């Protein structure tokens, strides 16, 4: 015999396991929480220039794309370099919107959120949101179950309630011991704080690695990427 309650529990469809918008990095995910970026809420990603915030956010975005999540990134300052983002192996599409002026960034984010097709929408380099726009964007994010991330250089904020805020601060890189190390990968540390939000305050120290350029010669005196001495399209220069 089986009770009706048990029968219902067995036959009721389980909620689908959605993609977790995590980074795969233990320390960063500890700050984000088990489910990663919270959908339907605004997450602030705050830090000065060269604090590593964009690189860590890219780790989250690339992992989301690997799970088939469409990502819209509003590059309001038109500062990103395409080479850092080109990865055809990822299933989820990445739309980068580059408006002519940073002021149009919030409009672009709203258009992307309105489609309810993007799992993550990043508003990067736009001026601070006013309260009305911020509330509207959050409403759009809630209706579309999208994670809205605002990347800003300073902590002065407006734009309605924030679900989570991560503050990034660069730490000094250890000096290179010799010339060979000076030409190798550059490892530098970033301190990430979760000053407030739903979860208790916490802080982590993460490391970013700026890799060695693929054709960089190991010997300091050797030229790195000499010019192709043969004209392209000729017999020896294809």
């Amino acid at each position, binding site marked *: 015999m089986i009770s009706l309650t048990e029968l219902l529990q067995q036959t009721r469809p389980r909620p*689908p*396991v959605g*993609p977790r918008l995590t980074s*795969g*990095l233990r320390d960063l995910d500890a700050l984000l929480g088990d489910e990663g970026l919270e959908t339907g809420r605004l997450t602030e990603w705050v830090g*000065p*220039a*060269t604090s*590593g915030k*964009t*690189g*860590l956010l*890219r*780790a989250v975005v690339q*992992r989301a794309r*690997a*799970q*088939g999540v*469409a990502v819209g990134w509003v590059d309001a300052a*038109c*500062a*990103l*370099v*395409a*080479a*850092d983002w080109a*990865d055809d192996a990822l*299933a*989820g*599409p990445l*739309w*980068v*919107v*580059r408006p002519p002026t940073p002021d*149009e960034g919030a409009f672009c984010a709203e*258009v992307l959120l309105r*489609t*309810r097709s993007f799992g993550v929408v990043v508003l990067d380099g736009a001026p601070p949101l006013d309260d009305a726009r911020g509330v509207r964007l959050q409403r759009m994010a809630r209706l*579309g179950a999208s994670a809205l991330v605002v990347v800003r250089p300073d902590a002065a904020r407006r734009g309605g309630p924030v679900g989570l805020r991560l503050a990034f601060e*660069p*730490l*000094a890189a250890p000096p*290179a011991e010799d010339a060979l190390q*000076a*030409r190798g990968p*550059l490892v*530098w540390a970033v301190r990430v704080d979760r000053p407030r939000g739903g979860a208790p305050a916490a802080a982590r120290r*993460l*490391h*970013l*690695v700026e890799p060695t*350029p693929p*054709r*960089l010669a190991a010997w300091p005196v050797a030229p*790195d*990427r*000499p*010019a*192709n001495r043969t004209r*392209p399209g000729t017999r020896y220069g294809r």
Partner: protein
Amino acid sequence: MSGWRLACARAPDFALRVALRALPPDARGAPVALVEAGQHARVRAVNAAARLEGVRPDQTATRARARCPGLCCLDWDLGAFTAAAHDLAEVLQRASPLVLPADGDPPGTFLVDARGMRYLGGDAGLADRLVALAAEADFPGLRVGIADSAVAARAAAWLPDTPLGPEGPPPLLRVMTRAQGTRHDRGARRRRPDEPDDSIEEIVSSSVVIIPPGRDADFLGALPLTALDVDAHLRATLRGLGLKTVADLRALPPAALTARFGPEARAALERAAGLDLRRPEGALPVPLPAVALPLEHPIEDTTRLIFGLRGTLTTLAARLMARGLSATRLALALLLDDHSEHVERLDPAGPVHHPGALFELLRDRLERVQIDAPVVEVQVRVLTAVPAVPEQVHLGAGRWNPAAMQGALDRLLGRFGRAAVVRPVPVDDHRPEAAGRWAPVIEIPLSPPLTAGPDALAPPPPPAPVRRALPTPAPLAARLDAGGHPIAVRWQGRWRRVEARGPERLSGAWWGDEPYAREDFRLALAEGGVLWASRDPRAGDWWLRGWFD
């Protein structure tokens, strides 16, 4: 005789009249030219004021503007002209059931079935009705030629504008103005009642030329070679050989002409003899859907039009879907209170037929359009369309919604241009800033991307910083050590101690216009953070390219 009677109706300056509707009435007297789009834009048509200034068709737009600095250049919009020609054809169908735009002729030229007009005034009655109907439709001065064949009817319709040379008209060409009842100009004279009628034209007015049945060959033979509807290259060749009239062409041996100039010459000979099988057969193509929203009161703020437009666009979408079409180009026409028309062309990112997508497309344009007078009516016309592609419905696909994404794409592209929505594409280049490019997003997959569970993902690589580039490299003030490496740089208004990591020497493109040779450095700031700088090895200058974030 073929048993056919054909009329060729031609509205002079048809394209110009259609295009001038976009201008306020007081601006239509200014010099105006229709310019074909393209890298080497050329003038296709000019009005009288522009002609007075020395602007001529086939000039380049640059030359035309040099001749007339105040020239108003309008687009040669073939889609709009075709739509207007369709409207005029519908009007002319009140005179004859078969009216079709003539292939190969400028917009505004029609072939009309002229048979069965015996009890309706004959050929003359048909011509009168065509001229009157066209005048009602704001195309006065319609030229009409009626003959047994299309080539003769066409030549007759062009006869009033055909240059006949310094020696005047051929003796058989006589022109009579019906209103005056006298044959005049071009050396014609009134025929006496007892004089045998040896003229080719039965009735000729300043705009109507009627060729009696069976006289097509005689009529064509008297015309200059330019009046014959044949391949332009062949016509130039024949004129180069000294042929002046169609009769000269007909006098040549057909076999030798065909052997020398090919089948085009054979076709020219047949047309010179009045043998032309072109007929106005078939039905007038069904026009592409269009909707109109007349306003009760003129509206100055175009954003207010958005509220009334949704229902209208639902109607347009229903008409598109009823015919299985998707629009690839639309025109938003605002009829203004000053009797002018403001037309905005809309090019969606892909074929659209959903009301929501159409609404998003038009809404953004209405928010930004600038008009000179209040709007009294809004029209949305489909200019081009393609068969709609059946859509796959993805049950359980979750958030993936191609229609909504296409609507967003249309809105962003319509507002900011093609380069606004992009995706990264790798490029084989040494330079970091050139090792990828932003490619425009042009299509949206109908199916959602493949999904992988979070547990199936491989551990991520160590996180790498992302470059943020300045729009253009900026000069960087640097203090160098003995080895020439910077120990401090001035950034964000103050000096900062740095440790230089590098160099990474880059050179190439010496074969092109922009060769490069530089040394890239990563400057690790003492207080944290890394800058992206480069050094010009020849000049020794330091440049800040951006930073790692």
